[in-house]
């Protein structure tokens, strides 16, 4: 489903060149649950943002379902993200002026879904994730775990092909983290492709594969037995 060839990302920093990703070759199959780990600064999030088409590589190629993403225009990339990809960010990243229901409805409305259909789908997604009783709450009225689950519901509401999660448990306590990870596992069991960044080895262990990065390069690729 996802394939990278010599994916490289560099930044100009203080007169020198910082290599954030160094010729990463990665293949993610449909339905896989991938965890990307590594120390701080190893390039985990950088790789995630490249795979999620939130950034452009300096060199190398990204293919999603065989399509070279570099060939897409900016608006095509936006539409692709909208239709095919879902995101869960580290600090929930729900829109503060929208209720839980409205946050999940938003991508659906952008796809052209009618208001009623979007609402139905959003309600279903929120109930699936276990926050069906918080539909009309603003993010400020939700706990961290609840907000993260709203973010997950938003990510899955439009049935994306791939979900990208960047440190989804970073700001949560262990119990709430378990709840969120259980949600991911449930989705995975239903066939969802998930790519998750985490620095917690314990959380990475729930994935099918653990990719380890160090200084921007892939140094490990372990499959769970």
């Amino acid at each position, binding site marked *: 489903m996802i394939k990278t060839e010599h994916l490289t990302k560099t930044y100009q920093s203080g007169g020198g060149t910082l290599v954030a990703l160094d010729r990463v070759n990665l293949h993610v199959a449909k339905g896989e649950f991938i965890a990307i780990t590594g120390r701080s600064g190893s390039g985990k999030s950088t790789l995630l*943002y490249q795979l999620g088409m*939130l*950034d452009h590589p300096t060199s190398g190629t990204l293919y999603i379902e065989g399509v070279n993403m570099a060939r897409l225009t900016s*608006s095509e990339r*936006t*539409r692709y*993200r*909208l*239709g095919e*990809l*879902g*995101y869960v*960010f580290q600090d929930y*990243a729900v*829109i*503060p*002026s*929208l209720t839980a229901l*409205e946050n999940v409805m*938003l*991508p659906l*409305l*952008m*796809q*052209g879904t009618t208001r009623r259909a979007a609402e139905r789908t959003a309600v279903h997604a929120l109930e699936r994730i276990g926050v069906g009783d918080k539909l009309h709450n*603003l993010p400020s009225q939700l706990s961290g775990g609840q907000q993260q689950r709203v973010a997950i519901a*938003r*990510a899955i509401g439009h049935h994306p092909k791939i979900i990208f999660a960047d440190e989804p448990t970073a700001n949560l306590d262990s119990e709430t983290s378990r709840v969120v990870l259980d949600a991911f596992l449930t989705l995975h069991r239903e066939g969802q492709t998930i790519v998750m960044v985490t620095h917690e080895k314990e959380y990475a262990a729930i994935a099918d594969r653990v990719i380890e990065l160090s200084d921007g390069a892939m140094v490990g690729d372990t499959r769970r037995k």
Partner: protein
Amino acid sequence: MRTRFHHFLTALSVGVFLAVREIRRANLWTTLLIIFVMMLTFLNLIVVGGILVGLIQGSTNAVHERYSSDLILSPLSRHAYIEESGRAVALIKGLPEVTAVTARYIEAGRIEADYKKSRRPSDVPESAGGLVAGINPADENRVTGLARFLKEGSYLRSDDYDQVLMGANLFYKYTPIDSPGLSTLRTAGVGSKVRLTVHGFTREVTIKGIIKAKVGELDQRIYMVDAELRTLIGRSDLNVDEIAVKLIPGANPDAVKQKLIAAGLGERAKVQTWSEAQPKFLTDIKDTFALLGNVIGTIGLIVASITIFIVIFVNAITRRRSIGILKGIGINAAAIQCSYMLQAIFYALMGTALGSAVIYVMLVPYFASHPINFPFSDGILVASPAGTTLRALILLAATAIAGFIPARIVVRQNTLDAILGR
């Protein structure tokens, strides 16, 4: 395949979705403050120009109501008077649109006061010159309401012998200007005996009242009963110099003018509607003041646009991360920009609606019944619906642009940088 129009509609729909919720959940006092600023801007656009134009419109209205009325007839060029004035008046009175007519004799005259006091041979009595209008007091009052403008004294009656009303401009008390060539009466007042001279004929008369109507043609005149003026100057014909005609409400002065011309009156008199008889300088001043009002209004518009720009820019900058997230999850830039534009338009719409209510429910009626007392006119507020609508649309367009530009600046920033706060 979805067409570009469908994409546009979707972006608009999502923009509305975001804008409504943003406005609904924004700080109420901030929202009210912005709307208040918009309202003040709109009022500035309308009221400043409206008062400036109204200053002159007040003069125009005064000339119309108090001097020319709806139609005014005057002698043809190189003619001393309106020929066959009696028949003209009869013809005019016969029209169904006419409600009242007044005929005036107009002669140049001079008033002398203080002439009985002994003086040195080289001294002259104080005097003032003006046009003497011989009128039927009742007719004149029916057409122009002249009696309303009595500043002092009492109004003429048809049997008043040797009594005059004088315009306030002839008195130093009301025109305190010391200028060579401008002579006014300093010691005379109501009840004073003065000497009136018209075409070399002199008569002692008493000042019965002083008129102040803020119309030059009225405030510079000396009024006496028409029969008395005819006797003074030895005229036996009944041909007059002005005929003012008041029409029923709703009557079209142009149409009545055409009727009079068709009846042959145009060969005996110059027939003008009130607008044709307006002094050109008034029209010129009105146009200049309107321009001035537009310039001042434009400055206010620029200030309001900058205010909206700053409000939307600060709003967008503080929500930079949210905007980045929206873009990240696939909400296109058009929808996000649209939501900010719609917020700006909302503020402008509310401001113009409130401003319009203030103008038409409060200000216009208030100034109509309590005109601003300028020395030379009663100033009103002129705010035509067409002009107000045009200015509202201009304000809406300006704020839409002022809302779009900052939104576009922020939305165009790198998505990932916005999400990560870089």
